[in-house]
């Protein structure tokens, strides 16, 4: 079946917008760069929704666009594959990024270099699209690194700041470490299955040895762990908050970080054929989720709390993947995209509102933003909706998706179920703590300066409103997502639903107790247990470990380049040359200028020559 034209809109619109944006707007009228980009956002969003509807109706596409490279055992063609998984996630990504683009226009007003910002922003959007609709692993890898590059450029958008530069560099390097796993998996696939196309790989799973399947699965998870900030490689996400808030909202909450989960969902058949990999994913997901939840509770910076919350939620999705619950993972991915983006945008509005008093700081702490409920009622309300969705309070979206994951966990084991409930508790605890401290905490208790915050402009409020509506109503799409993925609509187990809500309520209660009834608790435990704070501050010491590894790498480079190359190996080869020169000088001492000696040496030479000639013949 030939490709419907909206698919070409998916790719054509962003590319056209980028070209027009850079060559026309950026050069001549920088302040209007976002116009072509917003137009392309709208077009792609419509196309994505239409395609999602088609796929819901049962359509599906998997065709090759052009042959990228083919020689010997290496045949790679770039193509498009739209099935239930990619269509649903694509719809979410396009809607959310469209809204965030609009929000960014309001947020970045007056900032220097906004046209450059929008170009990078849309480059990210294009790479994300490419990643979602690709039909083979290598094309996914190409856009995977494209997304990494965009995150490098956007985190380091305010490049005069040293911390922003370090954060962007750290993000790119960690992603690159992950990408090694991904590219190695691709090489193994090329070697074992002879092709990287999803269809052919899953068809030929039979003739790949179990051991090799396991390694490929683990390597793919290693790549996904870097992108989705899972346990060993999550270190870059908290620092990624250095970027502007729309960047954090779009990339480090809703879309980019979910690419890892998307890859896992995409290669589900491969993972299911290697059960140990699923166990590893579950364990890693659990560790990440629980660890991030604990750390998030201790954080004070608005965006850092949300960052760790994202890491925790991604851990939860990985747990869903690990338990083989594809529908739960994908649906949670979609709902998470909505409410996490909403939470970040609200945090952005708060920071934007406090901008005057933050004297240029990029992000605000809970202390600076304490008790803003009265100043920012609208944002407060939206944040409340987001918080309820995240913690899984019915009838909002979070409840439905988290419930699916809880059911999946319950089926695969009580211990696992207990841990997932713990994660749910943690998530409601840290989000309500942030809500209460930021919006409802009494101003007096907060030690922050008396800040006067103002509601953001209309351009920022409309996307927040739409996202709030979506976060509230996305629960109904559970059935559609399941059908698109080819599963029966989920049936709700009453017991799990009730216990989920109770856990959310418990979380709220503890948060209320810690922040409202004993407001000074936040500072007391830091004073009494300084070691605990330091320990939590650097992710149980893992941040230090990764920095040490990076430092070790740099030291190795300096050793190799300095001590070995320029002080031992180079002088050694040059000493060979100077050695010859000395040899020459030594020999020249023989000619002391006496004529007779020269003649004597001539005789000796002639005699020796004659002798050798006689000897040889």
């Amino acid at each position, binding site marked *: 079946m030939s490709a419907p034209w909206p698919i070409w809109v998916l790719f054509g619109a962003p590319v056209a917008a980028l070209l027009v944006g850079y060559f026309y707007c950026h050069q001549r009228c920088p302040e209007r760069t976002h116009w072509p980009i917003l137009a392309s956002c709208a077009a792609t969003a419509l196309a994505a929704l239409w395609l999602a509807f088609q796929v819901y109706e049962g359509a599906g596409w998997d065709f090759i666009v052009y042959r990228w490279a083919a020689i010997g055992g290496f045949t790679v063609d770039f193509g498009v594959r739209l099935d239930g998984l990619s269509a649903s996630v694509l719809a979410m990504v396009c809607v959310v990024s469209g809204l965030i683009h609009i929000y960014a226009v309001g947020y970045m007003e007056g900032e220097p270099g906004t046209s450059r910002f929008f170009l990078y922003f849309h480059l990210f959007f294009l790479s994300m699209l490419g990643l979602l609709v690709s039909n083979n692993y290598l094309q996914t890898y190409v856009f995977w690194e494209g997304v990494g590059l965009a995150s490098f450029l956007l985190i380091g958008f305010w490049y005069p700041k040293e911390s922003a530069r370090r954060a962007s560099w750290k993000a790119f390097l960690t992603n690159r470490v992950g990408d090694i796993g991904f590219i190695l998996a691709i090489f193994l696939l090329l070697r074992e299955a002879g092709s990287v196309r999803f269809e052919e790989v899953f068809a030929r799973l039979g003739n790949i040895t179990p051991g090799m399947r396991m390694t490929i699965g683990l390597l793919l998870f290693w790549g996904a762990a870097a992108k989705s900030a899972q346990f060993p490689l999550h270190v870059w996400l908290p620092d990624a908050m250095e970027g502007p808030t729309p960047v954090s909202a779009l990339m480090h909450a809703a879309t980019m970080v979910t690419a890892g989960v998307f890859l896992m969902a995409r290669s589900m058949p491969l993972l299911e054929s290697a059960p140990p990999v699923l166990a590893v994913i579950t364990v890693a997901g659990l560790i990440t989720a629980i660890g991030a939840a604990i750390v998030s509770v201790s954080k004070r910076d608005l965006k850092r709390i949300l960052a760790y919350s994202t890491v925790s939620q991604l851990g939860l999705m990985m747990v869903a993947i690990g338990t083989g619950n594809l529908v739960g993972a994908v649906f949670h991915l979609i709902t998470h995209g909505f409410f996490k983006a909403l939470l970040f945008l609200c945090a952005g509005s708060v920071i934007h509102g406090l901008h005057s008093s933050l004297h240029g700081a990029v992000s605000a702490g809970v202390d600076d933003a304490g008790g803003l409920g009265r100043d920012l009622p609208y944002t407060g309300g939206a944040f409340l909706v987001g918080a309820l969705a995240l913690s899984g309070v019915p009838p909002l979206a979070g409840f439905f998706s988290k419930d699916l994951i809880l059911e999946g966990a319950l089926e695969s084991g009580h211990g696992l179920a207990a841990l997932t409930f713990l994660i749910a508790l943690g998530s409601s605890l840290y989000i309500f703590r942030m809500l209460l401290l930021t919006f409802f905490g009494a101003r007096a208790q907060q030690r922050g300066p008396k800040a006067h915050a103002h509601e953001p402009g209309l351009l920022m409020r409309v996307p927040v409103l739409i996202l709030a509506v979506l976060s509230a109503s996305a629960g109904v799409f559970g059935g559609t997502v399941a059908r698109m993925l080819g599963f029966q609509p989920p049936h709700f187990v009453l017991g799990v639903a009730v216990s989920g809500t109770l856990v959310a309520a418990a979380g709220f209660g503890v948060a209320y107790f810690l922040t409202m009834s004993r407001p000074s608790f936040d500072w007391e435990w830091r004073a009494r247990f300084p070691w605990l704070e330091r320990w939590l501050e650097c992710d149980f010491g893992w941040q230090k470990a990764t920095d040490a590894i990076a430092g070790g790498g740099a030291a190795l480079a300096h050793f190799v380049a300095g001590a070995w190359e320029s002080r031992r190996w180079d002088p050694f080869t040059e000493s060979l040359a100077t050695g010859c020169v000395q040899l020459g000088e030594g020999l020249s001492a023989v*000619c002391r*200028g*006496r*004529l007779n000696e*020269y003649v004597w040496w001539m005789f000796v030479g002639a005699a020796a020559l004659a002798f050798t000639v006689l000897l040889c013949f």
Partner: protein
Amino acid sequence: MDSGLLVWGVSGVLFLVGGAFLVLRRQLIAMIIGVELMINAANLALVHAAVRRGDAEGLAAALLIIAAAAAEAVVGLWLVLRRLRDGETAETDSLRELSG
């Protein structure tokens, strides 16, 4: 009577004595004498071989060698005399330019 061995012997000794002149004697003119001796030794052997084989080319060569030796002697002596005329000693040690 194999005069061959004898003539070879004579020319060999003559050659060596010429060589001794060159290597051991200090004066430049002695070296020239040495060279003359060596050329003669070679010529003697050459002519002897040419005569035994009845090969005219050898004789012709010997003749040319004599001519060449003459030219060489002239130039050699002239160089030495020019050097002596400039007030230098005829010692070989005075020629130091080539020392390493």
